[in-house]
């Protein structure tokens, strides 16, 4: 699991290893992160997600070994 920008700052980390569970979805994994870092809860409505460098939906299944990323609203340029 990769965290960026304000989410990484508020979690105090940019990277988490989470055990894979059968039937894991992006949303389920995100919820486990929020349990650990409740201060991130208010970011949920604005987050996007990626599985292995592809934008993904909350309901998408996460394969074992995949890299999930929490993507706050982007502001590059």
């Amino acid at each position: 699991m990769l965290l960026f920008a304000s989410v990484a700052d508020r979690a105090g980390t940019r990277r988490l290893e989470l055990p894979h569970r059968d039937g894991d979805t992006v949303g389920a994994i995100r919820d486990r992160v929020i349990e650990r870092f409740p201060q991130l809860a208010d970011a949920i409505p604005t987050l996007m997600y990626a599985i292995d460098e592809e934008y993904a939906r909350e309901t998408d299944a996460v394969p074992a070994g995949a890299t999930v990323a929490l993507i706050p609203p982007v502001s590059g340029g």
Partner: protein
Amino acid sequence: MLIRVTPDELNPGEAIAAVASPAAGAINVFLGVVRDNNLGRKVQYLEYDAYPSMAEKVMRELAGEAKERFGLEECAVLHRTGRLEIGETSLLIAVSCGHRAESFEAGHWLVNEIKKKVPVWKKEVWEDGEAWIEGPESLGMQQAPATMR
């Protein structure tokens, strides 16, 4: 296609050379530059965070789509990361094509898409605080001090 996310200085000459083509009559280059103010606040410097491998992937997809959509000869997209001072270039785009109108349209389209889709984030640092800017043109929210990172 020259696609790169890098902490190093961006060089417009390199991007222009990368899009050179005998069939190109027009080259358009866009530089996103660090400005000393935003939404009325004085900016000291910016810090860019990125998901570099995914950012390059999305930039490559957008460059490919631009080539198709505007009939470009070539296309280069580079984004810098890390600390950038006022006047430094954060985003560098170059496109080449037959005629000028398409070169302007393609450049403008690419900047807009990049700002919407590429996983890169800027933090503004002011004299009295700092904020991650999340979302295009947002004012940002005052964040915890950097010592918490």
